[in-house]
């Protein structure tokens, strides 16, 4: 009889232990996506800001579609802007070879020659601005409008934030590099090069 009650006690204890040991997840969401959606609804903003990290960089605010964000001002970074300070005469005359050669180092490596040449983007008559395919002026500060004529998909991604690079930090305000900050418009692809490092320990480890 005594043995029996003891047996029961052991079983009961084991049962209780098993029950207690069940991992307790207090998460009321199915997955992290559900959680993000639900908790995002009560988003009140954050106290950190990346404004400090943007100091010293001149930015302009742009609004494209639903997206409003900052991009770096461009004109002041172009060497010898305004262009018309040199380009005082029409291009045709300059090309006659009477003047010192300029921009000789620029090699256009962007699409093929059927698609693009200098004046696809530059305005032969107004060097201080860019020119859209239909002949409208595009400000150098908003050169992305030139790129997005062909690169529509990249433009969509850039506006949303899937393409391109943030400046400052993740915290608002959102500031992003514009196309020409990463891509040389005359040669937009990334060069191949050697990786930044090689891990010799890993090699040893896997011998």
């Amino acid at each position, binding site marked *: 009889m005594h043995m029996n009650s003891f047996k029961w006690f052991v079983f009961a204890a084991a049962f209780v232990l098993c029950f207690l040991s069940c991992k307790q997840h207090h998460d009321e969401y199915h997955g992290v996506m559900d959680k*993000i959606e639900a908790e995002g609804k009560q*988003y009140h903003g954050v106290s950190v800001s990346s404004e400090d990290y943007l100091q010293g960089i001149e930015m302009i605010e742009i609004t494209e579609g639903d997206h409003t964000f900052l991009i770096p001002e461009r004109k002041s970074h172009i060497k010898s802007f305004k262009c018309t300070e040199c380009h005082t005469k029409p291009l045709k005359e300059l090309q006659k070879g009477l003047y010192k050669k300029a921009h000789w180092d620029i090699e256009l490596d962007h699409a093929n020659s059927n698609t693009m040449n200098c004046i696809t983007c530059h305005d032969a008559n107004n060097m201080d601005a860019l020119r859209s395919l239909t002949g409208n002026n595009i400000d150098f500060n908003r050169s992305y409008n030139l790129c997005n004529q062909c690169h529509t998909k990249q433009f969509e991604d850039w506006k949303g*934030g899937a393409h391109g*690079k943030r400046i400052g930090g*993740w915290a608002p305000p959102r500031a992003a590099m514009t196309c020409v900050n990463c891509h040389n418009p005359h040669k937009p692809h*990334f060069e191949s090069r*050697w*990786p*930044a490092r*090689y891990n010799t320990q890993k090699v040893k480890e896997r011998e």
Partner: protein
Amino acid sequence: MSSKSKKWFSLNLGKKDKHSENGCGCGKTSGGCGSHDLTIGEETKKDGFDQVFDVKMSRRTAFKQLTASLAIGAGAISTSCSMISGDETKEQAQIDWEEQFKGNYKLMTDEEKKATVDRLVRSYQLRTGKTLNMSSKNAEPDVLFGYAFNISKCQGYMDCVTACVEENNQDRNSQMQYIRIHEMKDGKGFNFNEADDNYYHEVPAEGHFYMGTQCFHCDNPPCVEVCPVQATWREDDGLVVVDYDWCVGCRYCMAACPYDGRRFNWSKPEVPEAEVNKNQHYLGNRMRKKGVMEKCTFCVQRSRAGKNPACVEACPTGARIFGNLLDPNSTIRWVLENKKVFRLKEDLGTEPKFWYFMD
């Protein structure tokens, strides 16, 4: 010993006053009064053992006084022998002592967090003469960090790896790195078995694409579950962090991580003094010791200050996107909602907060 009489640089510990009230009655201002710096039983901070039990002082005091009395014996000898370095040695000894018996950072109050950070800064200063900037900033409400990686953009330059190593003061001898870039063959899918994560040739290589892995800061992290001492946990902003001083080095978390996100200090980690990143966070890139676990923290010292992690900042191709998942207007949210994203080993139920996508 009053704080005024100290010759060394004094941090505003906020607790100093209490300390001096309880201070030395022997009247000496410095040097000889060796025992007092070591009788930390008089310390009124509440951490270590106390925080677990919420026992005010008794246990800790008793334990400390018991052991302190032993230390005093040794201390008395050492102080009588070296009068020159006396004060600083004693202060270092006290800091070491308090650090050895402090509690788990996860359970500390903000004051306790600040106190330990101040001790660590002071200790570094005593050892090297250099000043650190160490933060104990907590997670901010309404923030949940997430990361997206654009497979079509990564070119395999590994600039992120270098930036990460430098930012996070990783051991140079063992060439520890949190990030791995896998070079994969086109047409083989995501076949990690045939991928090379230690290539050294001009990149991007013909017919290959690149995929980076690091700690994915799972929302349901298996590493946290298995830790026997809660030395690793998930912060409110989603970062999975390690208290290097609480870790016992059992490496159970390492076995539990399906993503190879964790690194162990098999020997004493070393970083040349000139290369030490002095902008630190307790849970982030502060110096580690041998025998403890460490891992990517999404650069907590940067991300909690609103910056992007070092890898994101260093990436020349914009393949890395970081942001606040709870902000409906954040770029990371746009990526999740508009791109075809996926995660690695989703079937394991770990809910990583690290998504991959393609253009």
